[in-house]
């Protein structure tokens, strides 16, 4: 055990919790306040645009992962399967459908409203399309598609960008105007985008702090808390800016003090392994999963999952001077919208830039967008970096697919392998 210090919550942690709770409260009270609610997805979310229409986003992935963390997803999934949904398909979808059937109660214990519109930001995941078709049939709500082309050839082209902008101008914005009765104001969008840039700058500083030794953050398990506000409803808001400013300051203070990251058992006292992690985490056993790493002194110095809502650390920033074009660029640039060779490149760069001892893939059954090809990613990144790769399997929110003993065993074996390889390399160098 290397984590002995008592748990002490930083101000940023408290703020994050308050922000997310305030979002769910705002959402659950939308029927009373009259605010329109728009369901959409995290990758390629149009947070700033929705704010221009005073609409509140509903994020089914977030609802599903919250259900997973609250140990509710198992029943929701079973209920959806009883109603004819295949055991082979994404459990986020089944969890979401099951949650509706169970009364659609959110994490604050309040009932969430049925969204007024399904804004299908179709970015980086095929399942999104079927998910909203299913919801549309179930909820009898209209849907609007924003098709974001995939960067199959390793780049976003001007034609792709134009295609997205045209959809925004001629399909998405008119639908939002019709729904909310609010006229689109491009200057309002610019103001929000300017706020986004500030938060993005601060978030990148937090990510890059992990280049320090010890890393002051865990860029995967801790990282999912950091992305909460910016991936949900707070990109483009002052509250979001305030949160990231505090988070950055606290992180830099940790660097100055040479402190490690906060873990489920408190502050990590000794950083033994620096890892890059590919793939989403498991949510049903999130804390247990995290502890499997932190108990061994393993820190995720970078991760790909925390980039599904934007690769800010590779330079992207929203550009208030080109409001719709920048939204198109954002949608195109989300992690899972990148080709496999690009993903290999990114992970290899993370391994090098963050001086990782190795990289680990958590392959989730539900998500073919992430998972298909990961075994080739494993080989390629090992080949390029010379660092040891590990591979474990779990699921997003299906508790039946989290085998704790098996995963723990694999992680421990993997870390032993990393240790041996590191020792061998040190021996050869001396």
């Amino acid at each position, binding site marked *: 055990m290397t984590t002995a210090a008592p748990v002490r919550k930083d101000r940023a942690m408290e703020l994050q919790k308050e922000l997310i709770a305030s979002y769910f409260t705002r959402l659950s009270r939308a029927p009373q306040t009259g605010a329109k609610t728009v369901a959409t997805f995290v990758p390629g979310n149009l947070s700033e645009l929705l704010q221009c229409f005073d609409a509140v986003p509903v994020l089914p992935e977030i609802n599903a992962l919250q259900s997973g963390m609250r140990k509710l997803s198992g029943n929701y999934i079973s209920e959806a399967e009883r109603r004819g949904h295949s055991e082979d398909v994404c459990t986020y979808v089944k969890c979401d459908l099951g949650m509706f059937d169970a009364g659609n109660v959110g994490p604050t214990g309040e009932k969430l409203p049925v969204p007024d519109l399904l804004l299908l930001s*179709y970015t980086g995941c095929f399942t999104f399309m*079927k998910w909203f078709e299913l919801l549309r049939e179930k909820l009898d709500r209209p849907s609007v598609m924003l098709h974001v082309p995939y960067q*199959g050839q390793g780049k976003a082209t001007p034609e792709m960008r134009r*295609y997205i902008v045209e*959809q925004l101008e001629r399909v998405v914005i008119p639908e939002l105007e019709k729904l909310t009765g609010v006229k689109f104001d491009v200057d309002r969008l610019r103001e929000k985008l300017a706020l986004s840039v500030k938060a993005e700058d601060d978030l990148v500083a937090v990510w890059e702090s992990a280049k320090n030794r010890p890393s002051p953050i865990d860029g995967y398990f801790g990282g999912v808390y950091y992305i909460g506000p910016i991936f949900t409803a707070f990109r483009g808001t002052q509250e979001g800016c305030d949160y990231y400013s505090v988070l950055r300051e606290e992180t830099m203070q940790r660097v100055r003090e040479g402190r490690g990251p906060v873990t489920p058992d408190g502050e990590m006292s000794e950083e033994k392994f620096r890892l890059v992690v590919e793939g989403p985490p498991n949510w049903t056993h999130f804390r247990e999963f995290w502890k499997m790493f932190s108990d061994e002194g393993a820190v995720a110095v970078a991760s790909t999952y925390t980039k599904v809502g934007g690769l800010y650390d590779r330079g992207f920033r929203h550009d208030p001077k080109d409001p719709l074009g920048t939204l198109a660029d954002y949608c195109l640039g989300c992690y899972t919208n990148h080709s496999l060779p690009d993903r290999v490149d990114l992970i290899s760069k993370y391994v090098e830039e963050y001086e990782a001892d190795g990289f680990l893939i958590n392959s989730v059954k539900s998500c*073919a967008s992430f998972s*298909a*090809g990961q*075994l080739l990613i494993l080989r390629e990144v090992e080949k390029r970096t010379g660092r040891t790769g590990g591979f474990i399997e779990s699921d997003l929110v299906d508790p039946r697919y989290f085998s704790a003993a098996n995963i723990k065993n694999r992680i421990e074996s993997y870390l032993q392998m990393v240790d041996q390889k590191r020792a061998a390399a040190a021996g050869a160098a001396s």
Partner: protein
Amino acid sequence: MTTQRTTAEITAACEEMYYDLSFAAPRRWKDASPDRKVAGYLPVFCPREVVHAAGMLPLGISGAGDWLEVIRGDAYYQSYLCHIPRSTVELALSGRLDFVDAMLFPSTCDVIRNLSGMWQMLKPGCVVRYVDVPQNYDPEIGGRFWQGELRGVAEALSPLSGIEVTDERLAASIRAYDENRAAIDAMYALRRDRPERAPTSEVYLVLRAANVLPVGEHTALVREYVAAAEATPRKSIDASRVVVVGAFCEQPPLGLIKTIERSGCFVVDDDFLLVNRWYTAPVAGASGGRGAFADLASAFVRSTTPTATMYSPKSGRGRPLIDRVRAARAEGVIFAAPSFCTPALLDQPMLSDALDAAGIPWTAFKYAENTGQFQPIREQTGTFADTMKLWEAA
């Protein structure tokens, strides 16, 4: 003087191509001239007209069925992913596709999408193109984007073949594929109207030959089969008329198709190898004279066959299936989806709910392209067929 072949002779020739994983037919085509190039494509859709106009042979790759042991391919995929990418990788790594100069990967699902990137890494000498079809059907938005994609495919292929895809060449290719689709429509109409004369196990083999034959040869083959089938009296049997849905990507083994028929079903409509029947109307002239690329784009956004991989802008996802059932005078639907096929399996509850509401019976099972045990399926579909007959009699 040529002797007309019988349906048995035609389907035997098609079956030989079906089982041939050395790809002798396309290799022969390529070997006929040193300039010839081949472009492979994965299900479910490929703008074959563009490939053809570039002077290349479009080669449909539908996995390796149940007659290739997959070893290397399995090393690249987790147990919870479907089978077609495994066998496709096996084909590639075993050198069977080394004669293929380019590969096109359509936006069918995340697995096929990611396979495009794997191909770039595994086969660095091959021209690889991800073909992103529009999910917006406004001709001025999705149609224009699609035209750009089509031109991108043409620009990727032309340097290989040395043949520029001009509007004239593309128009001629469109005509060739319109003729092919018309011939296939006639074959499907024959099967629908007189299913005993054109069993699906034969129709499927004739359709499948489109994977490996040049379009003109395939059109002639289909016409030859239709003529032979029409001229060949066969004993009628008392079978239930069914539509098979969900098998648009990874293909069921031939034995499974035969099993469905032997259990007492006439398959009177299906979505096998959907690329061959993608458009519901002719492509030529679809844009009203704006050129061949515009014709293809207009046809795509206006006349695409509804399927799970394409977005449905309005609710009522099951309506097109009900229409198909009625048009085919079918009594029920068999959902036959590959295991772990996200598009088919996520679509299925919407379709089955619509069937329930319309009072159309259905049954469902999953398969893999290498499924070898057909008896449980025979019992299931046989019971389904018997039950429908009983309902009909009641």
